[in-house]
């Protein structure tokens, strides 16, 4: 080994290191003139390059994020300003705006359809596909040192199944009976019986079809992520040298692979009950003046199946965000992530626990109260690895040299959101307190902050950080900072007050609050929330403007490694083609967090260790 001679040098050229120490997989012999990217269609549409697929996921996710948040603005207008006329929305929404005495308001059916669609779109299309799909695709091959995913073809299918799922869901918005309106959890019997809700007719059929297609996408992607991480790590890249991003995506993919099929089974049984007269989830129902024949089924069974995915799903959303934030915080504060191994173990602990806490969504759904004891215990245990992660993030900042930019600000904002939203989880996970808080606005505040806003912050941090890797240009930093502060303040302004209405007992999913004396005291607060939501939305518009503006007009990247990062993605050429590295694949010599070691800014993963040097993670 040439380590002893190399270590005396002050700086290294990473390209030389890769050529000298890297692994020659005879790349150019196979890929003379990339046959997979020879024309417009194979480059931009049916691309098999993981970097392009990542961009496809991201931009599709952004499309859905805009649709989903516009929906929330419409129903927020109804909640905040029930007396104001929404007549001006009639050109867009047609019959869903009901006019009485010249005042237009959102129809009740459409209100519930919007709430349902908002939830479904944000949870699945934006925070699962848009977040995990984007960054797993972009970073797994780049950071483990692979030329592409294990199966680029399946990876391409993964995106197109997602696209198809989106098309089906989008079509359902235009049904005359309206899109599905029974809540994103689609609890039967409401979701099964068209007599119970007009959205449970064709709307539900398309909803279920769309999500089945979506699960196919997730599984194809997940198999790829897992295989790539396990089999395509470059020479020297041991599991303990993986960046935390990869650990997070890897574990996320495993969780998805184990839990999403259960969701499909639940949907299949729903479809059976809807179309073939079975009674898995139906029993003793009298509806529409008629007693149904179905007996012996249990709606609670569906909830078990749903939440067996549904709860891991929130970790499928938040773990990638955690991974991105860990990486961004380390790079931008010029310090190793604090407690790398503790971070990995806490990811594993959270992943394991995520499978045995699902019934904490069901404390008040009629399950045996004795069973809830176990779920309370496991649920509150999750607070421990979560706390460990928070303390480690904070310690990463300690004695750092923080570079403030869009990426690091959103990473810090993520930690704040995760704390705020995580702490309210301690109330809800405690079944006794959940008796009162279950299905109130407290829950809305909790999950929006901890998995909605926090996951978005992780995503934003990731986009600002890796945008140069995706488009070889930077996003505008001034706009990024305005975007950050607007979103940080705005998101808290929207969701923090919901704790108060929740603690006062106001239930979620109410079209209006004035029916009840108990719930009607918060008109001003609801107005405030709506105004905050509208303003915050415009800060997101700013982000979208910045994003597309920067793709074509952003500041150009002049060096390969603008952040001074140690990981492999920054050793690829500025305009990396399909296959990522021109010559050899880099060989990894050390863990990914050597920042500030030996008085040096950073030491790339490709740089061999000096004699007697201990690898950082151990």
């Amino acid at each position, binding site marked *: 080994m040439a380590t002893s001679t190399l270590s005396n040098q002050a700086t290294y050229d990473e390209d030389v290191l890769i050529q000298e120490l890297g692994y020659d997989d005879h790349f150019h012999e196979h890929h003379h003139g990339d046959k997979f990217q020879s024309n417009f269609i194979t480059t931009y549409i049916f691309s098999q390059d993981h970097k392009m697929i990542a961009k496809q996921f991201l931009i599709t996710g952004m499309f859905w994020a805009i649709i989903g948040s516009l929906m929330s603005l419409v129903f927020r207008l109804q909640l905040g300003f029930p007396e104001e006329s929404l007549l001006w929305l009639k050109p867009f929404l047609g019959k869903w705006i009901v006019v009485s005495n010249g005042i237009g308001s959102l129809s009740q059916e459409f209100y519930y359809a919007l709430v349902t669609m908002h939830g479904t779109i944000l949870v699945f299309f934006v925070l699962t596909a848009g977040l995990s799909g984007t960054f797993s695709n972009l970073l797994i091959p780049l950071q483990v040192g692979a030329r592409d995913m294990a199966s680029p073809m399946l990876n391409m299918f993964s995106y197109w199944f997602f696209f198809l799922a989106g098309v089906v869901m989008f079509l359902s918005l235009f049904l005359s009976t309206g899109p599905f309106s029974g809540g994103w959890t689609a609890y039967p019997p409401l979701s099964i019986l068209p007599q119970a809700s007009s959205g449970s007719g064709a709307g539900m059929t398309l909803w279920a079809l769309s999500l089945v297609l979506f699960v196919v996408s997730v599984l194809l992607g997940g198999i790829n992520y897992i295989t790539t991480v396990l089999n395509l790590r470059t020479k020297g890249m041991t599991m303990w040298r993986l960046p935390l991003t990869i650990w997070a995506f890897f574990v996320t993919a495993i969780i998805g692979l184990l839990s999403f099929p259960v969701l499909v089974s639940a949907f299949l049984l729903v479809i059976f009950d809807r179309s073939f007269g079975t009674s898995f989830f139906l029993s003793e129902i009298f509806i529409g003046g008629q007693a149904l024949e179905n007996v012996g089924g249990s709606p609670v069974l569906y909830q078990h199946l749903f939440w067996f995915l549904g709860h891991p799903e929130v970790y499928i959303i938040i773990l990638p965000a955690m991974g991105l934030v860990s990486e961004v915080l380390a790079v931008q504060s010029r310090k190793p992530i604090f407690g790398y191994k503790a971070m990995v173990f806490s990811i594993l602990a959270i992943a394991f626990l995520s499978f045995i806490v699902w019934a904490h969504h069901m404390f008040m759904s009629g399950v045996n109260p004795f069973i809830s004891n176990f779920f309370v215990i496991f649920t509150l245990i999750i*607070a421990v690895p979560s706390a460990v992660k928070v303390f480690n993030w904070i310690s990463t900042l300690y004695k750092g040299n923080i570079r403030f930019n869009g990426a690091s600000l959103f990473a810090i904002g993520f930690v704040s959101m995760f704390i705020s939203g995580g702490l309210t989880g301690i109330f809800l996970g405690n079944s006794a307190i959940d008796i009162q808080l279950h299905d109130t606005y407290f829950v809305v505040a909790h999950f929006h902050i901890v998995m909605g806003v926090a996951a978005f912050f992780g995503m934003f941090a990731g986009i600002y950080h890796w945008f140069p890797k995706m488009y070889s240009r930077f996003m505008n930093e001034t*706009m990024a900072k305005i975007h950050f502060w607007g979103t940080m303040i705005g998101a808290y302004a929207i969701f923090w007050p919901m704790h108060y209405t929740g603690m006062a007992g106001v239930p979620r999913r109410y079209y209006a609050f004035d029916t009840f004396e108990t719930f009607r005291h918060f008109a001003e607060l609801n107005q405030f929330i709506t105004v905050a939501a509208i303003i915050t939305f415009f800060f997101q518009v700013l982000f979208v403007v910045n994003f597309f503006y920067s793709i074509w007009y952003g500041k150009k990247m002049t060096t390969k490694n603008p952040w001074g990062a140690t990981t492999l993605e920054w050793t690829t050429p500025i305009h990396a083609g399909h296959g990522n590295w021109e010559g050899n694949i880099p060989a990894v010599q050390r863990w990914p967090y050597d920042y500030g070691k030996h*008085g040096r800014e950073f030491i790339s993963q490709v740089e061999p260790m000096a004699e007697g040097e201990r690898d950082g993670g151990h």
Partner: protein
Amino acid sequence: MTVLLGLLIVLLVVVIVVQIGKVSELSAKIRGEEEMQEVINKKQAMWSLLFMIVFLLAVSVSGAHYNNWYLGFGPHASASEHGGSIDSAFKITLYATGIVFVITHILLFYFAYKYRGSRSRKATYVPHDNKLEIVWTAAPALVMAFLVINGLDTWNEVMADVKPGEDYMEIEAVAEQFGWTIRYPGEDNVLGERNYKLISGDNPVGQNWKDEKNLDDFMPTEIVLPVGKRIRVRITSKDVLHNFYLPHFRVKMDAVPGMPTYFVFTPKTTTEAYREVLSDYKEYQAPSDPADPAGPQLWETFEYELACAELCGTGHFSMKKIVKIVPEDEYKAWLEKQQSYYYSQIRGSEYDPFSDVWFESEIKERRTTFKGNLAEALTATTPDKKTLRFEYVRFETGSEKLTPVSQYELGFLVDAMKDNPGMTIELAGHTDNTGDAAANQTISEARAKTVYDFLVEKGVAPGRMRAAGYGPNRPVDTNDTPEGRAKNRRTEFRILTQ
């Protein structure tokens, strides 16, 4: 309009911001990237610190402002006995998490501020510290253990079902799109059987009328409960999922079709007492109806409410029922006024499985009426006042055969004959004027004779009675209306001697 104007302004702002962004990029080029980054670091670090201060202040001020609305705070103490322990578990968690929230936020933003990037400084290489990791694994674990033990203790106590032999009342809440039906057990304190297949317009919750426990069950429009009484609510649904949610009582449980659930609670505070407490708080001292400032104040019109807390369709937000908690005596008075659904709607109808039977109370009541009428007739002098119509004697349609239920009133007459040994009577059958006159005459005679035979069989001496049929000849009302004709079709007896 203002909204649109606002949107336009925001769009304008976006354009301006894009321009500013361009400018700052240019100036960075001129001043040098690193120097510019250091200026930005300083500025953003200040913003972070400022944000922390403003955020923590905003949280504290708004938290204090809305403090009275938290469960267990201000006037919003639990109105049920178990609720207090839920409120205290909430408070403990609120304080514990509140402390952690403030400390972690101060550390997070203070570190961000303190360790802002500077060219004159380098980050320190601190990759891990196992002791620290152990500390901040163990500390939250301990706090969690405490919260779990406390929480589960409360949970298992609150969710425990009633024990055999315990003194409680069971009521039933049946949810449907979009309303509640509340069923009380009535005098027997037991809810009767129900079956969803029996539900109809005449039988809202599908009670099985063959089950005698159903006969006294009643379904009031409001939930009225005596203070201090242990209540077990049996919760169920006819159609989709609902949730039986009493916010003031810390009661919440899904209503699941096909699987009855329950919640046991004891109301602790009467509506009146709760209003008293509210009256001290200014948020409740506003007029209840904003259009009528002189009208009653919010605290005066306060009522406990039952709401739905599980999405059930378009009317989910409107499933309200008023709940009143009253002192024992007031409850008893209310109970007196309630009418069993069976007696008010089902008794004597085609759905009544007991139409052939009289219940003890009915026998008692009707015997008294019969005796009263007879006593009046005995003292009367005119022949028409000495005639008594059988109210409950019925014949099979088109036949002279007595229906089983006729035995009761005829039994009263048997007893009357025994009590008045000198009494002789005429039993008379009458018809209306529809149909063939001769046939009417025949059937009226036959029916009178049937009654005569029945009484003879029961031991009345044949010599004290005579039977006569008058057909349509002696109407007591007009034959032109259905009501009149119904009155004319009758069987009666006239006291001849006494």
